[in-house]
């Protein structure tokens, strides 16, 4: 290997001189660069032939020999030119993880609730599928963790169930929706009576000492004067069929008692519920989710906190 330095003929200039003697070399482009550039042009043309490329009239050139076959959203098999939407659908149907996922979905579809709850792998699969479903459908109201919004949407992560916490109850709730209704007692009671009922209700969960107000409230609650016991029951533990709250436990879904600082605020919170009543709806999901998806969500919600 020699170290010779070659010289070549003087490099040509562009021929123009600025300011008398400033000239510019006209060096040729490096060959490797030039041929790489030509290669990119060839590549581009080949690309136009095999992939969608040019807008033409009202449409576009779709490329040749690039068909993708997939199952469309309405269940029919479709073959069309290369496009990323078809690629995605095909991947969702045929990829390795999609196939595995379908396998497990079939297993869950055929199994009953007790089987699923007792099988660790089915539970793990159910949870991961249901987290996505919950996020897409339920979290808008009930929150990402299912904790709900006090005053509006119940907390699904605790062990208190307005409409029943068995898997059958939860499935019914999701499938058919629920209508939570408590009448407004604004016109039935006067202000003092409302105070008394609020005091009695607070005393049921140990948040108000027993005094004359509580006794008066009890008389309203447990008799036909107020008739509260019709829905909440004489034991005030609520009725599954009515969706009425258990007033004796520490869980509040509408009156914000846990975050109230003073006794007056607690009383005011409960009084507001009795005064205005409750009218809230949970939509039904039978039209939007199929039975297997509802099954997955049921198991998920049941296991969130304390299914029955």
């Amino acid at each position, binding site marked *: *290997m*020699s*170290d010779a*330095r*070659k*010289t*070549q*003929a*003087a*490099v040509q200039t562009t021929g123009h001189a600025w300011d008398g003697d400033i000239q510019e070399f006209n060096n040729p482009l490096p060959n490797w660069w030039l041929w790489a550039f030509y290669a990119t042009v060839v590549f581009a043309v080949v690309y136009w032939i095999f992939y969608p490329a040019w807008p033409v009239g009202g449409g576009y050139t779709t490329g040749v020999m690039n068909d993708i076959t997939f199952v469309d959203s309405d269940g029919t098999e479709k073959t069309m030119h290369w496009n990323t939407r078809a690629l995605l659908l095909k991947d969702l149907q045929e990829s*390795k993880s999609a196939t595995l996922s379908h396998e497990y979905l079939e297993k869950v579809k055929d199994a009953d609730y007790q089987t699923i*709850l*007792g099988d*660790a*792998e089915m*539970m*793990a699969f159910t*949870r*991961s599928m249901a987290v996505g479903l919950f996020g897409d459908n339920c979290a808008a109201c009930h*929150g*990402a*963790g*299912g*904790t709900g919004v006090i005053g509006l949407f119940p*907390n699904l*992560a*605790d*062990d*208190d169930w307005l409409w029943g916490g068995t898997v059958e109850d939860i499935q019914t709730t999701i499938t058919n929706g629920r209508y939570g209704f408590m009448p407004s007692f604004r016109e039935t009671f006067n202000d003092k009576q409302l105070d008394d009922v609020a005091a009695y209700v607070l005393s049921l969960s140990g948040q108000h000492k027993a005094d004359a107000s509580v006794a008066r409230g009890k008389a309203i609650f447990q008799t036909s004067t107020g008739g509260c016991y019709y829905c909440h029951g004489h034991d005030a533990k609520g009725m599954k069929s009515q969706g009425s709250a*258990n007033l004796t*436990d*520490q*869980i509040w879904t509408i009156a914000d008692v*846990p*975050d109230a600082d003073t006794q007056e605020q607690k009383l005011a919170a409960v009084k507001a519920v009795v005064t205005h009543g409750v009218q809230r709806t949970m939509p039904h999901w039978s039209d939007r989710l199929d039975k297997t998806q509802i099954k997955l969500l049921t198991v998920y919600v049941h*296991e*969130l*906190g*304390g299914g029955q």
Partner: protein
Amino acid sequence: MTDSANEVLYQARIPIYPRSVKGRFRTLKWGILTLAYSVYFLLPWLRWTRNAGPDQAVLFDIANRKFYLFDLVMHAEDLFWLTGFLLVAALLLFFVTGIAGRVFCGYFCFQTLWTDLYLLIERLVQGDRVARIRLDKSPWNGAKVFRKALTHILWLTVAFWTGLTFTLYWDNAPDLIVKWFTGKAPFAAYATTLFITATTYVMAGLAREQVCTYMCPYSRFQSVMFDADTRIVAYDVARGEGEAGRHKVTRELKTLEQRQQQGVGECIDCGYCVQVCPTGIDIRNGLQVQCISCALCIDACDTIMGSLGWDQGLIRYTSEKEAKGQKSRILKPKTIGYGLVLLAAVVALGWSVSNQAPLEMAVVQVRQPLFVRLSDGSVQNSYELHIENKTDQPVKLAIMMRGLAGAALDVGKLSSVEIGPQRSLRVHARVRWKSGSRHKGSRSFQFNIIPQTRHEIGMVSAPATFYMPGSKN
């Protein structure tokens, strides 16, 4: 225009036609090449029985995040072993290069191995050095086209088989090779094979010694690790040149006595050492950056000296110190230091690999919500237990909790779970604690998984935290 502006700084490749040679180092190199090729080309086909997993002995299953090396299954979280391995490789390089010079370059590097094979193909098709030079100078007639085409076709075949074999390490070889040729392999398989084919063909067939001289960073920093004791290939200047220099054999300069009388060295300037050099240097000019320490020039000179009946070793492995007549040492602070650190790294890696835990658990807190108040006033925290069974057999586990007096663990019906071999599981666990208002903030505890079958595995614990609401109750 000044001269420097007209100078072309690009040095086009000067073609090298290495001549064949026989000798102990050539034999050693062929031996190493055969061994290396056997391992590389045959290993993907070696089968291994496993209870759970593919039946290929060496398989890097990226899709399932497991590397199989005979009985060892490397999971994604064991990737730091690769760091350890690279560290050991680097230390080994520093250690060996300081002592033995560029032996990796000359004997083991895949650039050298494949270039050797390509040169062999060239020699078989086109002939030895003189024939090849003549062929290149001849006009493009039918014979030349045929020979050149055949050479390149054979090169491409070897390159293709190299690339395909490389791909076979990443999936089950018998299946993948069928899929590859029927068009059903994943795109990555085709891309990898084609890429390795292209680079093998270009590097070993076209670029050759330019890789060593210009491209390889390894070759440059190996030189930095040399010292005066390092083994190098050197020409004995004193012996070869004498006082008057080297000279070809003539009637007056035929025997050793004649040559010594006239002060002429033992080197007969036959040029054999230059002709066999794969990087095209003249070792008689001293150690050069292109020298890959392949020792073919030693074999060449020894052959000539042997046929003359003179002493061999005119070109030999030596060190700078030895060439000056001093003694060179191997045991000195640098080599001892590298050796000890290398030993420590190997021991640490070996210990880590052999002590791979059979069962692993990590606890992930469910943070949405961090805690839930229950109807009786107690607080509940949720966790996801990620449990991995790294053994070859299924195991049944009981899930328990300890460290929170009065707390209850609720895993639904999954208090006892079975995990298959090489499989992992996520279990949703809830912990309920009625701590009363005197406890606030957070408390640490631990989850335990206890094998109910295969008691030799032992209990595994993982820490967890229980969060309670703040000052408001």
